[in-house]
């Protein structure tokens, strides 16, 4: 061979060196095939750079293992100069010995693996002597496969540099086996790791089991085949409207309700006569109509309504559900339940002198009830100015009350077109159902040209029912003896035979039968107050306020959620952690604010920059609310009645809110 530069023939050694250099250049481009993950990669990546840069003299001082490993790595990988003084001599050794994939080197590789094992454990740091022994074995072992000349060179070199104990083979064997085993630390670490893995596995299993539901979640088909569309159009012609009777205590709500039921023949004359006699006997003759609704001994003795009572009645044009709400301040929770079932509110006010005023002023319930009704989503209000007979049906009194209330109702947020005023007398029944017929009655109401209360209810706008949405019902009452759940359908339709799911108990059952308007029915439509009989249900886990929905639409139950809140007049600020009662429809639960996220401008609704420490009167804010236990809720945008709530504290309504985010 002739060198390109000067044309001089090269010596043998020079030729070999050149070939080697070429080979190196080639190999450095293509990284060698790695036969096993070994210390070589590790050491190479860490130390090769150093090796290349450091002067050779320095390398002499490095440890035996270091030298050896570096040597091996150079052999296997790139033919880098080995860290020995006799570098040039080494190169005379036949090339093929140092080829990476050489099978002869297999033992070396495994041994290197052993040393890798030891050095990878932390314990190896503290056993330098054993490592040097191990490395000597390594060399011993590989020696046999090496060519004779190299062996000799190596021996010479070893004599100069490394001490190799040849004798104690017993120890060597022991060492070898010991290093093949995991170190005591490894055993501990592995045991710990595997322990966690088992835990994870069981956790996963537990999770899966929790997710499992025993009953199948597949929806089932209704028992009876009926034409749903036909039912819907039939229902549209004669809709089901529900209204709640609200107002200050003693305004005559129960008496008015009793009157409506009596005149629409739901209560027969005989029952009423009996009630009347009983009431007169106990000296409460004027309560006879109220007793139609107030049945418990408590209510009758004290002459106040305590709980709501809903009844159905029918006119030629419409079906009605009437909910009689209590007026006493203490029973506002029950009244809220009543409002949550209604489309329209009938606000009863007492027209008698001073009675209206006392009900309308600060402590009276007229205002609180109205605000609650509006906050809970009622948009239409009919004001029944009751006991007009006490003020001789005077127009001026009616107008006076109208004027005051009108301003207030508009302020509360009712639209002008959704407010109606009607003078009535619940006790005598004038202008409730009966239009004035006799001359005296006509004279009394000659100044009034509007409709009767019932007419007003009948002519109320028909409410759009969300029949296309999934079936959702909030349980109002449980008939434990017959497994019947009573409530009003919020959205959707339900038929016997369909599968429903309860939230939060996650129980699944099949609807056996349903009752609408006291009659067995084949379909229940949004807005209906129904009684639902469900099979295979564990009653213990179900409470009033739980939600029943169609099986493929599970209503989420949450313990904390984000909400947009509007506060009313407060006499104490709301701080983080201040406890109050949260009312969602017919459920109440202690709750608190866990985080005030942001504050909104009262008028523009824009986000304000300041982050308050507490909330005070009439502020609007985005907050996080924490409940004591899970409550079925929906986002306001998905379901209006299950997504809104009111807050009360110390017997006052302090705010209203909607669910924004879970």
């Amino acid at each position, binding site marked *: 061979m002739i060198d390109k530069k000067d044309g001089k023939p090269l010596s043998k050694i020079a030729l070999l060196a050149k070939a080697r250099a070429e080979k190196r250049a080639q190999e450095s481009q293509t990284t060698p095939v790695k036969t096993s993950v070994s210390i070589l990669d590790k050491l190479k990546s860490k130390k090769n750079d150093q090796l290349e840069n450091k002067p050779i003299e320095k390398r002499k001082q490095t440890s035996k293992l270091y030298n050896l490993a570096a040597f091996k790595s150079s052999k296997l990988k790139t033919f880098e100069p080995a860290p020995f003084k006799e570098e040039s001599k080494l190169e005379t050794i036949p090339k093929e010995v140092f080829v990476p994939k050489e099978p002869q080197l297999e033992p070396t590789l495994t041994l290197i693996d052993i040393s890798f094992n030891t050095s990878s454990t932390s314990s190896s740091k503290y056993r330098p002597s054993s490592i040097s022994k191990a490395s000597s074995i390594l060399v011993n072992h590989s020696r046999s496969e090496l060519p004779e000349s190299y062996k000799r060179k190596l021996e010479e070199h070893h004599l100069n540099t490394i001490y190799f104990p040849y004798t104690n083979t017993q120890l060597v064997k022991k060492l070898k086996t010991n290093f093949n085993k995991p170190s005591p630390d490894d055993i501990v670490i592995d045991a710990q790791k595997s322990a966690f893995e088992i835990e994870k596995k069981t956790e996963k299993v537990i999770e899966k089991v929790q997710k499992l539901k025993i009953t199948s979640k597949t929806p089932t088909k209704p028992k009876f085949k009926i034409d749903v569309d036909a039912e819907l159009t039939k229902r549209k012609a004669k809709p089901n409207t529900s209204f709640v009777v609200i107002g200050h205590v003693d305004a005559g709500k129960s008496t008015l309700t009793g009157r409506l039921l009596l005149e629409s023949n739901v209560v027969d004359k005989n029952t009423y006569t009996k009630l009347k006699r009983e009431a007169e006997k106990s000296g409460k003759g004027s309560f006879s109509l109220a007793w*139609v*609704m107030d*049945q*418990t*001994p*408590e209510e009758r003795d*004290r002459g106040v309504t*305590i*709980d*709501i*009572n809903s*009844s159905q009645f029918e006119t030629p044009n419409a079906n009605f559900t009437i909910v009689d709400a209590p007026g*006493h*301040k*203490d*029973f506002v*929770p029950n009244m809220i339940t009543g409002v949550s079932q209604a489309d329209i509110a009938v606000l009863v006010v007492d027209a008698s002198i001073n009675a209206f005023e006392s009900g309308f002023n600060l402590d009276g319930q007229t205002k609180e009830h109205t605000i609650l009704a509006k906050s809970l989503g009622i948009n239409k209000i009919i004001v029944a100015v009751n006991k007009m007979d006490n003020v001789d049906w005077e127009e001026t009194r009616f107008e006076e009350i109208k004027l005051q209330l009108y301003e207030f109702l508009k302020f509360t947020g009712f639209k002008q077109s959704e407010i109606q005023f009607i003078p009535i007398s619940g006790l005598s029944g004038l202008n409730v159902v009966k239009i004035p017929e006799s001359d005296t009655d006509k004279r009394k109401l000659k100044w009034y040209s509007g409709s009767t209360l019932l007419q007003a209810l009948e002519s109320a706008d028909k409410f759009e029912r969300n029949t296309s949405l999934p079936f959702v019902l909030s349980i*109002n*009452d*449980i*008939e*434990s*003896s017959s497994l019947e759940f*009573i409530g009003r359908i919020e959205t959707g339709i339900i038929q016997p035979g369909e599968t429903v799911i309860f939230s939060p108990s996650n129980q699944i059952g099949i609807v056996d039968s349903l009752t609408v308007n006291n009659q067995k029915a084949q379909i229940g439509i949004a807005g209906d107050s129904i009684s639902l009989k469900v099979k295979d249900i564990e009653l213990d886990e179900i*409470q*009033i306020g739980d939600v029943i929905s169609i099986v493929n639409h599970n209503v989420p139950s949450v313990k904390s959620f984000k909400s947009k809140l509007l506060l009313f007049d*407060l*006499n*104490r*600020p709301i*701080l*983080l*952690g*201040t*406890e*109050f*009662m949260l009312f969602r429809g017919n459920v*109440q639960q*202690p709750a608190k604010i866990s985080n005030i996220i942001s504050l909104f401008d009262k008028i523009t609704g824009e986000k304000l920059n300041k982050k308050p*420490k*507490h909330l*005070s*009167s009439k502020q609007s804010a985005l907050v996080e609310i924490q409940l004591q236990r899970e409550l079925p809720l929906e986002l306001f945008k998905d379901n209006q009645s299950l997504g809104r709530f009111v807050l*009360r*504290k*110390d*017997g*006052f309504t302090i705010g209203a809110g909607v669910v924004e985010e879970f």
Partner: protein
Amino acid sequence: MKLIANHFEKDTSGSVTLVAEDKEDLFTLYNLIQKGDEIDIKTMRNIKKNSKDSAKGSKAKIEKKLVRLRISIEDVEFIPQDESMRIRGKTTSATEDVPLGTYHTAEIDLVHPFSIYKDEWDEIAIQLVHSSCNIESKAEIGAVVLQEGVAHICLITENMTVLKTKIERSIPRKKRGDSSSHDKSLDRFLTVTAETLIRDLNLEKLKAVILASPGFVAKNLFEKVFQIATTTNNKVVQQQKSKFLVTHSSTGYLQGLDEVLKNEEIQKKLSDTKFAKDVVILDEFFKRLNDDDGKAWYGPSESGKAVDLGAVKNLLITDTLFRSDDIGQRKKYIELTDIVKGSGGEVNIFSSLHDSGKQLDQITGIAVILNYPVYDLDEDDSEK
């Protein structure tokens, strides 16, 4: 608590020997014992008996032995419901069986005396010992807050409110024409509540029993209790009739209790009890905060500034702050109380086991009511 001996040095270090008498005392101790204090106590310990032939692999025998140990406290654990308290720390003196510096957990019981050694007895600590040893200041009140279907039976002591039992029953709604199932389950609910009340509250020991509910449920419960007492011929209950107070609350959940304690009528009856006063002061604070009249502030820095101004009428502070492991913090708060007392203000230390204390804890645990309005306490000094 019974004080058996005390011994204080001039440098305010010293020891006190006490016997706890009730769980109320345990809570006092929980507030009193700090990290680093030393406690000398008789306690049971499992001791390994190293017999000589144990080398052959026979298990070392474990013996339970009553030993007297001196422990340097690292951790104190108190669970009000369990009425138990445990202290944990390293031993500071060696005994025959227990070497020096080994960990030990001892339970403080209501029988055996023990000594607490502190390097520094501050005023709050001494006051805690004195007030808990004063029997007259102890008053326990039973309370039932209920509404149809839910009842909470509680015990209110000087330092804590403990919920003894919660009763829940679902009561069907009345129906037109038939309310019998409603009436029946309501009656059942009242009976269960009355029976639990008689069982859970030690009426003889109590100063008063408050029954509170919206509507008439509390009144009915009152009648039910004595109806049961008459039929079962329970003389003890019958004799305690005068202790019962029937009152109004807006809800049957626990927050109703707070409302009851603010009630003037109840206040009059409980006028000399500390926690009832606390409720009123906290309420005044909240009212002022709501009015935003510049006289109510909360937070450590705001309160600190107000104290510096000498404007403080009432300093409201919870025992949580004194319980701080950071001795510097504790000292800082003690200093604040001293300054307020010195300038004629009143210091109210709230118990974190009462609802009022919990509320105060929610707003950093320290608050002040001022004598005159100051408006810019929350501004940073750097802004000025």
